[in-house]
């Protein structure tokens, strides 16, 4: 009798809580969220695979473009920078250039795909409820799958130009792992920003262009800026430079992978991933809004 009387005084919120109902759309606790996402990792991978297949199916050469595009790209840069900048060419130019261009594409592609991860999948976001973080994760997996044949191409180029394999090539695996972690963080950050301020997609290509020119992809920063040590120091405070330089140290003759580079590369990866996941999770309830 008392219970019934109380029922009519209770607010609906209390009533719902008393019956064990949970608020719809509430953001799960951070660790629960990660757990849910991990439980559906198969979705992120399958989405990446299917999206790649669908994207390639529209072209006649299909998946060959995964290799053709970077090759054409590297050839164009090789032509422009190799011929025009013939005097200032860094040592061992072709391996130097290919390593730079392919690894840069992995990072820039993750940022670009990450930025559209939520906005280009609105159909999914609006019809199904799942941890949204899987979308930027899927974008990076997609980019990773596209990078694999490029790395194969890179290794073949190295064989041709350097005539020899060293055990150091194996260390490329941890470098790619660190880069993937870094890319995940960047993709998540970009995904959240772009979902709230779509205008960012207009500026992103310019930012990427600037990074391409300032990360020493096709020229040696040490050589070009040897008279300006302070500018050099500022420009070197750049994760992209670290990753590319580290990979060159392992792959290209005449370059060295220092312990310092390993340290900074790992640092950037962990920093980006932690900030990225947290930053993305914070706005989980707001994704998919129609505004």
């Amino acid at each position, binding site marked *: 009798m008392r219970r019934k009387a109380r029922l009519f005084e209770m607010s609906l919120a209390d009533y719902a809580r008393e019956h064990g109902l949970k608020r719809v759309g509430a953001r799960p606790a951070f660790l629960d969220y990660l757990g849910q996402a991990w439980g559906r990792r198969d979705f992120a991978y399958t989405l990446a695979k299917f999206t790649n297949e669908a994207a390639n199916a529209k072209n006649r050469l299909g998946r060959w473009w995964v290799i053709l595009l970077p090759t054409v790209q590297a050839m164009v840069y090789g032509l422009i920078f190799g011929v025009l900048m013939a005097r200032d060419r860094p040592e061992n130019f072709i391996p130097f250039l290919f390593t730079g261009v392919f690894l840069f594409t992995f990072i820039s592609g993750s940022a670009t795909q990450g930025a559209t991860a939520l906005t280009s999948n609105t159909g999914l976001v609006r019809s199904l*409820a799942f941890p949204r973080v899987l979308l930027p994760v899927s974008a990076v997996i997609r980019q990773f799958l596209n990078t694999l044949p490029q790395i194969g191409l890179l290794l073949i180029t190295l064989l041709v130009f350097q005539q020899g394999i060293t055990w150091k090539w194996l260390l490329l695996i941890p470098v790619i792992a660190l880069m993937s972690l870094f890319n995940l963080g960047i993709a998540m950050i970009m995904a959240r920003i772009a979902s709230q301020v779509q205008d960012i997609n207009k500026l992103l290509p310019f930012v990427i262009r600037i990074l391409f020119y300032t990360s020493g992809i096709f020229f040696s920063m040490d050589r070009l800026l040897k008279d300006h040590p302070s500018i050099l120091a500022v420009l070197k405070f750049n994760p992209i430079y670290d990753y590319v330089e580290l990979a060159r140290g392992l792959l290209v003759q005449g370059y060295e992978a220092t312990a310092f580079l390993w340290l900074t590369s790992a640092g950037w990866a962990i920093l980006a991933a932690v900030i990225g996941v947290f930053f993305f999770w914070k706005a989980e309830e707001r994704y998919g809004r129609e505004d």
Partner: protein
Amino acid sequence: MAAKTKADAIPVVVVDDVHITYKVFSSGRRATRAAAGGGLFSRKIGLREVHAIKGVSFTIYEGESVGIIGSNGSGKSSLMRAIAGLTPVSKGAIYSSARPTLLGVAAVMLPNLSGEKNIILGGLALGFDRKQIEADVDKITEFAGIQEFIDLPMRTYSSGMSARLRFSIAASRDHEILIVDEALAVGDQEFRQRSEARMREMRDRAGSLFLVSHSMQSILDTCNRVIWIEKGELIMDGDPQTVVAAYNKHTGATSND
């Protein structure tokens, strides 16, 4: 304000004074030349706020199947999307015993992928086991009746075909709370009957169902409670015959189709 609650029934969805507002960039300018007037610099780009739902409260109990009716743009779909957790509410809150599944008219999930791949992805996103999904693919395809087209990209499907497929994916499992938002409107007569039968079956297994429809016949056949929403406000909530009769009187309709 304590809205009426039943003492002995088990609530599954509680909607507590919910408001939904959308902020939309509007050009502040009509598209036709006559209506617009002015030059390039005279237009005002404004942030318009659309108040789709204005303080709606109700409680749904176990085993109820609720018809949601109201004219176009009355806020029905906004409310359903909020109950499914896909649109955040701006004020108030919605509570539920399980995560509701929404089956809406929203665009296809991934238009460039085949129907089969959409089935697999949809299942994976909802957290089902891959083997289980692959075992269900044929059953789902058959229920939808689109076996011939299952390997074509979904963008090539007619609206009726993709609606059938979406319903079949959702209906392949029992849901504690299922929301069907006009998803059957484009289906043909035969499929409509098959899907209504499936919905009744789910309801009878203690699931709760929300059905948004403009077909009063579907509502009367499937639902045991009807909520009428107009301009974002709850007009009437009660047994189907009474509410549908009142709604028909309001719209001037003479038949239930």
